[in-house]
């Protein structure tokens, strides 16, 4: 993809309040950051371990960066139910890998998807910039790890689930209110623990601890999350709520993913965790222009 013809962001965005700072990068309000998923697991629900091998993972990262990814999210443990992965195995899958990515891509923001403070400490030392705690503070020491290492932290919502369990008959009086209450409390706790305020994100965590109707409600009302002032990360890519909505298996959820991602961006989400980088980049570039934070690559039609 030729980055030179992308829509251009209008004006300086890296100043003032609301700037998200991760690694060497700053993302101002109105600027969309794209996070590419790279799994170091043999059993990911979506790619079934396509990037488990080191060479394949490096190639996937190089490609994602070339296609417009601002961040990569490295996962050493499948999110859902699966084979137990010990901390030492998770470390084996992630630490050296993070160090190698850092060496290959000095400015790439490296996120590691982990709920273990021990893993967080070691990947941060290896060069990780963001800890993506998908399990909502299940390990209470994780915030301290992020604070000590100076990394950012994703505060998520799983409806009280334990790590790697699936939701069953989750019930909320108001799922959006519950997500806001939980994620902002985690963000406040992270702040109190000393995590950098410009590195904290909240993630409604679609599908985790939610049925499809609840994930749809979160998507529909994402503006309420954005109104908290915390940068919102959304990870909707190929998830079951899209599959159930359209009755499509994981390999055929790309169009639904773009629809959910686009609505989320329109309603104020700022970081997008995706499998298909070029598609998401195009959609986000387009929405940035619609929102008026970037200008078209060129407007000639009917103007000569």
């Amino acid at each position, binding site marked *: 993809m030729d980055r030179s013809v992308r*829509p251009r962001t209008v004006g300086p965005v890296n100043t003032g309040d609301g700037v998200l700072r991760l690694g060497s990068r700053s993302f101002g309000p109105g600027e969309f950051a794209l996070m590419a998923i790279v799994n170091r697991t043999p059993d990911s629900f979506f790619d079934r371990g396509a990037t488990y091998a080191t060479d394949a993972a490096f190639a996937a990262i190089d490609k994602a960066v070339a296609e417009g990814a601002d961040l990569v999210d490295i996962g050493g443990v499948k999110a859902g139910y699966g084979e137990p992965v010990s901390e030492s195995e998770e470390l084996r899958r992630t630490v050296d890998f993070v160090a190698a990515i850092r060496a290959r891509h000095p400015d790439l923001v490296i996120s590691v998807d982990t709920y273990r403070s021990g893993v967080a400490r070691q990947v941060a030392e290896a060069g990780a910039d963001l800890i993506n705690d998908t399990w909502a503070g299940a390990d209470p020491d994780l915030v301290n790890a992020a604070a000590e290492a100076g990394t950012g932290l994703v505060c998520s919502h799983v409806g009280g689930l334990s790590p790697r369990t699936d939701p069953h008959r989750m019930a909320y009086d108001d799922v959006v209110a519950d997500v806001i209450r939980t994620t902002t409390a985690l963000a406040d706790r992270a702040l109190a623990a000393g995590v950098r305020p410009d590195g904290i994100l909240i993630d409604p965590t679609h599908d985790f601890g939610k049925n499809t109707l609840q994930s749809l409600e979160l998507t529909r009302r994402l503006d309420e999350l954005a109104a908290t002032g915390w940068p919102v990360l959304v990870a909707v890519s190929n998830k079951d709520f899209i599959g159930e909505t359209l009755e499509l298996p994981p390999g055929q959820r790309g169009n639904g993913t773009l629809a959910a991602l686009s609505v989320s961006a329109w309603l104020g989400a700022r970081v997008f965790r995706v499998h298909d980088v070029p598609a998401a980049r195009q959609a986000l570039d387009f929405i940035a222009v619609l929102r008026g934070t970037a*200008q*078209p*690559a*060129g407007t*000639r039609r009917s103007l*000569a």
Partner: protein
Amino acid sequence: MPVVAAAVCPHPPLLVPEVASGAASELDDLRAACLAAVESLATAAHVVVIGAGSPRTYEAEAGGAFVAYGAPGVRVGSGPAVLPLSLAIGGWLLEQTKAAQLPRTYRAILADTAPDLCVQLGREIADSNDRVGLLVMGDGSARRSEHSPVHLHPRAEIFDTTVANALQHRDLDVLKALDPDLADELQAAGRAPWQVLAGALEGTSLSGDLTYEAAPYGVGYFVASFS
């Protein structure tokens, strides 16, 4: 005093960078040529801008805007936005040059004004006590290529070449003889303003210099200076 300097410029909305957005740099050379030509009007005491539009005269402070073309942030003058596109582009160019300081009058004429009336208007403008600088706004044919706004016309290119040569060589007879029906068919909006120019230059010895001639988007654009 007669006309002491004249400039010919096109008036596509795309000339305004905010309208072209990311494509603005594609017309950098045309924009630079226009500004250089308009700059040369600064030797006059009064600038008259001629372009196609409902027949009217506007004073110097008359406003023009580009919100109708998608750029709400750009405007010229201080009054309500009343200038037709051709004159608004003219004002927009003038305000970027030293000629911006001069007294200014805008004059719109119908694109289908008869040639002899155009020439007559040119003579009237030249018959002034001021040292007049004339800014003539006009586009060539909008049917130059397969990708033109209006479909390719086989006579478009030769028409535009005729105009270009007449501007370069100050051939007033050729300009006066441009056929209004053909110009209309070719959608060449500059025909009437160029014939005003021909009338205005009659009593002068100004010579022409064609500095830009191209149809990058299928519409003929010319820039010329008379000094």
